[in-house]
Structure formats: C-alpha cells, structure tokens
C-alpha cells in the first residue's frame, strides 16, 4: 500500500476513548501482512515470526487528542473537557465531530470582538462551547461523556506534506505498517511484533497494559516530535524533511540507540536529545514487567495537537526505513 494512501486512510478515521474507526482500519491493513490480534485493552498486535523467540517490538499509538462532552446546554450547544493537551487559543471557529448516538458535526464558538474586553487575553476552554446547529432533541443524540475530535480530514500541502488532525500518532502507525509490509516477506533472526496502542494521550496508559501482555525483550517506539517552527528555538526541534529523529536519552538503552544509528547509515536521519524521559510510550514500555531494552524514533511534526498538524511523507518513510534496517540487522540476543 502506498505510504500516502496509508496516511490518508489512517487520518481519515478517528479514534478517541473507544469511539471512531481508526483501530479497525489499522487492524485491516496489518492483517494483510501478518497474523494480527486485538488485546483486551484495545492494543493491536501483528507478529512476524523470526528464527528465534527473541522479541523486538515496534510501537505507535493510534488514539488521538480530543474532548469529552461535560454539559449539554440550551440551544444546541455543548461544553467539553479536554482529553489530552490542547491549546484553547486555536479553538474558536474550529470544526469538530461529536460521537453521540450518531456522529454530529459542530464548531467551537467564539465571541465577537466588540463584546470582548480591551486586554487581549486568550480564550480558555471554560469560555468556549461547541455549536451543533441542532435546535431540538439534543439530549436524545448527545450525552455526557461522548467523545469529540477535530474534524480535519487529510489534505496534501505541496507534494510531500500531509495535513490532518490525528497525525499524532497515525504518522507513527503508518511508519509501522510500511515496515510491517516490507518485512513480511523477509527472513528475520528475531520475532518482530508491531503494537498499535491506545490511550497514549491520556498518560501512556494503553502502552502500560499492552506491553504487559506481550513477552518482549526489546522495544522501539515511534511517535511524532517537534518540527522546526518559527518562534521555537532550533535546538528544541527537528528539521521537517530532515528524516527520522533518532532519540538520545538517558532513559533509553544505549546499545539500541547505537543500533538505530547503525541501521540509518545510508538514510537521511537526524538526532534528537532529551534530558530525561522522552514523553512517549517508550517511557512505560521500557519498565514493563522485568524491564525492556528501548529506543525511540520520531517523525518531525508541526503544530502538534491542533487540526493543523503536518508531517512530511519522506520523513515517515525515513522512520519506516530505520525500523526495517534495524530489524534486518538484528542478530537476536546480540544487542546488549
């Protein structure tokens, strides 16, 4: 499957807190290339058996940020609380989908300028609501707790950049699916599992339970990280188009990180350095059960946690290529 088509299929679907179809889209694609099962916590695992039982895990999360309905108001409006980190400043006039008894389209309210105070303060979630355009029977369709996601289906910007709301971390999922497809007909020294986990945006909870359910020796997580953005110091970001960001971190296993760079020597990649934990699922996977060797590869992304998230297809490909080479290079227990 073309990488662009995979990215569009994955970001054309939603998933937050059990609502949406992205999990099924992933399961369907993955099962074309390997036996695929769903864990009881919603994690999807595809397995490529190798010559040994030494298990290398590649992981990405398929949930996305969004909101939950906290109040149904008069006149077709609802209030929401955030599920995941969201910048309320971007919300006014942003389109959303509410997963009620049916999918309801809506838009975040804004108050016109003449009703605002002189000092230019940013809106926060408590002074915003969602306009559903429904004039009656709202409570029949929408209930407290219903999930809400940004309504920003994928589009191309230029010929290498995709913009969609859920690229964090469907871009990672797409890289995993590309690696799965390309490794599925290869002879592997180790068993490679691909985990698509839920609930990262709620504090890496899906990775905790899914990793527990898999016997594994080693894991490399794939997430998005900050791409170069005006107003952000360059040392905090990777370059868009600069390839996979391979992470150096004291919380990661040095030999795995070295192996990832070794696997990248003919690829365009860039280093990323974090001083402590990485803020991704690998932080919890690495301390699963009796401990797991760990690495992290990221796709540079702009405008994280907004409907304006963008990634470069070439960067997603670079991440996938790092994973493919790493798996092919792997000699079993040799990585210390």
């Amino acid at each position, binding site marked *: 499957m073309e990488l662009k088509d995979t990215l569009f299929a994955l970001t054309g679907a939603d998933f937050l807190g059990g609502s949406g179809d992205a999990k099924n889209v992933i399961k369907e694609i993955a099962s074309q290339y390997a036996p695929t099962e769903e864990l009881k916590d919603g994690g999807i695992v595809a397995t490529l058996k190798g010559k040994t039982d030494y298990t290398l895990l590649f992981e990405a999360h398929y949930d996305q940020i969004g909101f939950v309905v906290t109040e149904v108001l008069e006149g077709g409006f609802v209030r929401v609380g955030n599920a995941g980190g969201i910048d309320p400043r971007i919300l006014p006039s942003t389109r959303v989908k509410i997963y009620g008894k049916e999918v309801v389209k809506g838009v975040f*309210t*804004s108050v016109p300028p003449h009703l605002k105070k002189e000092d230019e303060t940013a809106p926060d979630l408590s002074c915003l*609501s969602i306009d559903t355009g429904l004039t009656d029977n709202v409570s029949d369709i929408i209930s407290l707790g219903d999930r809400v996601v940004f309504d920003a289906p994928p589009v191309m910007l230029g010929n290498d950049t995709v913009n969609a709301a859920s690229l964090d971390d469907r871009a990672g999922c797409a890289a995993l699916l590309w690696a799965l497809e390309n490794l599925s007909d290869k002879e592997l020294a180790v068993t490679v599992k691909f985990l698509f986990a839920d609930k990262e945006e709620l504090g890496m909870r899906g990775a905790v339970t899914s990793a527990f359910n898999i016997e594994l020796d080693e894991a490399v997580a794939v997430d998005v990280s900050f791409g170069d*953005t*005006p107003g*952000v110091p360059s040392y905090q970001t990777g370059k868009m188009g600069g390839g996979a960001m391979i992470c150096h971190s004291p919380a990661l296993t040095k030999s795995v990180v070295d192996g990832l760079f070794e696997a990248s020597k003919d690829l365009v990649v860039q280093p990323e350095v974090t001083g402590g934990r990485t803020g991704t699922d690998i932080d919890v996977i690495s301390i699963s059960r009796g401990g797991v060797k760990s690495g992290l590869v990221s796709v540079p992304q*702009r405008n994280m946690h*907004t409907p304006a998230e963008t990634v470069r297809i070439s960067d997603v490909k670079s991440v996938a290529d790092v994973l493919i080479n790493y798996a092919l290079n792997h000699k079993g227990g040799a990585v210390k």
Partner: protein
Amino acid sequence: MMQLLEKLCNLCGAAGREDKVRDFILSEIEGYADIKVDNLGNIIADKKGKKRAKIKVVADAHMDEVGIIVTHIDEGGFVKFATCGGIEIPALLGKRFVFEKGAVGVVCSKPTHLCDAAEKKVLPKLDSLCIDVGAKDKKEAEEMVCVGETAVFVPNFEKIGNLICAKALDDRVGCTVLIKLLKEEAEYDFTAVFSVQEELGLRGAKVAAFSTNPDAAIIVEGTTAADVPESSGANRVCHVGDGAVLSFMDRSTMYDKKLYDDGRRLADQNGIKCQTKSVVAGGNNAGAYHIARGGIRTAAVSLPCRYIHSSSSVASPSDAENVYRLVKLLIEKLAGGEI
C-alpha cells in the same frame, strides 16, 4: 436557494480579488438583466420589471470575503501575510487556507507543549504568524505562492444540525438573494449591485452608489449574531433562527427611521420573521450608500451569522429565506412609491 448559497460560499474571492465570484455571478444572471461591470469590478445589473419604478431602488450585496495576502516568504519557506478584512487571531490559528493558484497551507503556531504559562495566556501577534504550505525552503515555496497572492479559508460548506456552517456567508448570502431576485419576475424595475472590496472599507459600494445614483438603497448582508452560551441578554446582538435582521443603527450608519419602521411593519404584516440588533456594532455598505451624492435613504437587511469572519460561520436557512422575502418586499414597496 441553499444549493446556490453553497456554490457561492465555496468560491474563493478575497477582498480585491473577486474575479471567480464575479464570473460565476455573471454566468448566473446573464440574460436576466442589463449588465455592466465598472472600473473597480462591481457588477451593476439593471432589472426590467413589469412596471416602471416610481423611484430608483438599488439592492447591494458584496462579493468579497475576508482573507489574507502574502507579504513575504522567508528562508525556511514560511509564508508571512497581512489580513484583507478583519480576522481575529484565534480564527487564524490552526486553520487551512487556499491560495489563488491552488496551494493549500495551514497557519502555524508554537506547540502548546513548548509554551510557558505566560505565553498560554496571551494571543500571538499577527506579525508573528506564518503559513506552512509544505515547502522545504524559500525556493520551493515561491514555486507555489507569490508575494501579493491572496488566500481564503478552504471551502467547507456543510449542514450542521438544522443550520449551515461555511466560510464567506458574509456576504455570499446577499449575492444569493440578489441572483434569485434577478432571475425571477420583478414587479418594478430595480438595480442589483454586486460590489467589491467591502471588507477593505466599503470601497466598491462608494463608487457604485455614485454611478447608480439611486433614491433608495437596500443592503443585503451577513451580520454578527452572538447568541452563544458565553454571552447573554442584549450582548447576543441578534439570534440565529429569529429571522431577518433590520438594523436601526450600526457603526457605519444611522438608518433612515421611516424606512426602518416601514420595514418592521411590512415584515409583521406579511408574516416575515424579522428582528433587530440589540448592540450598536458592525457596519456594512450602508455606510457608503447613505452618504453618497446628496444622501440616499438606506436600509440594511441582514442574515444573522455566528462566528462571522471565520472559517466556520453558522446561520439558518430559514433566516436566509426571510431575508430574501423582506428584501423583495422592500424593493417592491419602495419602487412602487408605497413607502
């Protein structure tokens, strides 16, 4: 009427770049009126009615919408811009734009993860914003967009609940109403003006008012409705679903009192849902018409729109119907010399 409105809202015509809207309107009204396009690009369409008008009546709607214009492309390929018409910062952040030559981009913002507490409390300044068009550097960006090119919110008309949500309802609803009036039989002669550059300060209307030289003008517009949970009482301005808005005063115009009163009365008598604005705010082409030449009696009939000047204005189809009915009635009564 909704199909026509959808087509018009999905056309791109930033203020000063109304070409695509104008071409579409010209193709729609060809054969239904005596049409000319003036030096600024206003369409002036003289409609022949069954009877000669006792006074000359002009109905005006503007073709332009709020947008942005490229001012600079930096080394990283980021597009710097100015706004054409008033767009608030939150209405820009994270939104998609489409440029004249077809490039699509998103307005960038610093990720919330990297903002400190103080940064999160203020809005970024306009001159710190930029658009990512997916270019890797300046050269690639220049192949996609150029300095001086405009962009508007990506077309996105859709039904939400019982309402409609779209960019450019201000003022493609007015264009829709005037096209419909031109295409059907009229009682009396009247002139429809599809004006340019309203969002830049009523510039098209100024010259159209001069050259059409009417006795009375009716401005057909989209206006701010703030009937959201975050505002209350008079601050809500007007209400989506409560009908056409007839204004008594806004920031551009103190409306002709008799015309206002007659309009309210006629709406009542004819079962047309009609309301007024409870805040003196906003402005429209009436500001140009009512002081043109020696002064022109002017009324504004508006569609209540929530989140006006954003990618996602919300309005009611039934209100649009009431706007249409009230405009038609006012033209007839004015041209017939009854009010």
